[in-house]
């Protein structure tokens, strides 16, 4: 057993010894040195004092029992309902950013954060989808609609997907957070020169999460945000400028679905499944007077 470490050698290892990063052989050499060296002993004591002071100043925190429950719920509950319940229980119009719910037991995750969860989880592939999209000409999308007047299909799907992605990445899914169609609809008044139909489809599995003002094709448009299992759906609505063919497009993992109902043009965008969007379309069609719908 070597006890003849020089002070210099010992000093260079004191910290690692204190941190338990030395082999037992090295550690005992240090211990032996300390026994005979007041200077190194003082340094060693200082390390202990700093550690003790820190542990005294920052006592370890016991996780609240409610947190365990929340986590266990997350793990056992299907992801779908969880996100939706979380978002729904949290949202009340206008005060969501300011007010903290009084009780700690409530789910406090507000929509942007729940959404950031989703966004972050899929960040990697969304980002790569974006890159891929930009990089390629994306022949898939050029199924040119015969009609759209001032709207090129490429532009519009580009913009829609970009807007959808942006809303997730920038944590800016909704401007008005409400599950209540009667809150969301009036919110658009004064911001748009038309009144989008806003349906509450929670009972059909599309809980309304809120609304957002977006900018597509050079004009402000309404974006209605729905949850669908763990996905977020953006439904863009603006007045139909001309009869336009229905379309279902999928690109880079996103599905887009377009239809015209009433006097409105609808574009739904999501990373949910195409059939989810189809269902959404059906629900909207059945609710919206279909007088000017030229399709089908």
């Amino acid at each position, binding site marked *: 057993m070597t006890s003849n470490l020089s002070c210099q050698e010992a000093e260079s290892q004191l910290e690692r010894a204190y941190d338990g990063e030395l082999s037992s052989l090295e550690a005992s050499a240090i211990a032996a040195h300390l026994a005979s060296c007041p200077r190194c002993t003082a340094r060693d004591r200082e390390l202990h004092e700093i550690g003790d*002071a820190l542990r005294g100043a920052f006592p370890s925190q016991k996780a609240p029992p409610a947190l365990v429950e929340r986590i266990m719920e997350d793990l056992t509950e299907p992801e779908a309902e969880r996100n939706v319940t979380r978002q729904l229980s949290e949202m009340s119009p206008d005060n969501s950013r300011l007010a903290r719910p009084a009780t700690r037991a409530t789910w406090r995750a507000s929509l942007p954060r729940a959404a950031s969860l989703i966004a972050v989880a899929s960040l990697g592939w969304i980002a790569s989808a974006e890159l891929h999209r930009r990089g390629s000409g994306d022949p898939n999308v050029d199924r040119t609609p015969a009609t759209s007047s001032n709207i090129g299909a490429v532009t519009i799907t580009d913009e829609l997907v970009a807007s959808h992605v942006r809303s997730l990445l920038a944590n800016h899914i909704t401007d008005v957070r409400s599950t209540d169609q009667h809150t969301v609809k009036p919110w658009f008044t004064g911001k748009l020169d038309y009144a989008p139909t806003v349906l509450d489809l929670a009972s059909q599995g599309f809980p309304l999460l809120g609304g957002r003002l977006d900018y597509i094709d050079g004009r402000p448009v309404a974006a209605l945000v729905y949850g669908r299992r763990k996905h977020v759906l953006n439904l863009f609505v603006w007045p139909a400028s001309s009869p336009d063919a229905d379309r279902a497009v999928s690109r880079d993992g996103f599905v887009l679905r377009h239809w015209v109902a009433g006097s409105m043009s609808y574009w739904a965008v999501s990373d949910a499944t195409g059939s989810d969007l189809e269902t959404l379309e059906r629900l909207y069609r059945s609710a919206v007077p279909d007088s000017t719908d030229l399709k089908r």
Partner: protein
Amino acid sequence: MLDAGDLARFERALLPHLDAAYSLARYIVRDPHDAEDAVQESYLRAARYFHTLRDDDGRAWLLAIVRRVCVTTATERGTHSTVSIDEPMLHLVDDRAMPDEDAARTIARERVRSAMDQLAPELRQTLMLRELADCSYSDIATITNVAVGTVMSRLSRARARMAVQLRREVDDAGTA
């Protein structure tokens, strides 16, 4: 999200570290509510990526997730409100419940906290992970995504500064 077998493994591997995860979250984001949210989010992510965890010691793996979530949260907060990770972390612990006779100890604690506040965030986090979360060098390297050598030099610097600060404060207290 996890089948029964995975769930059992997940519980075994990660739930024991809940307090450590929560403590770390408290150190970084401070607000207890935010810390809870961050930990919950971290466990969700952990569940989602659980298949990538190779061995059953998930502590460092989990804490790495917690730290990432917390720093993201803190940064986002920083742009939206006044809280940022660089902000002093005074009042991390609620002292109101403490009896009066502990007043002196409270003052001592405040000194330590304010000394920590003066460290650069990466030094502070490294020192906290070592002393408070009891992480090994290689754990800290994993968690903070730097080399072990960097961990060691950060620890040394952090401690040297703490030593200076604490000595100075003891002196101040002595002369006061």
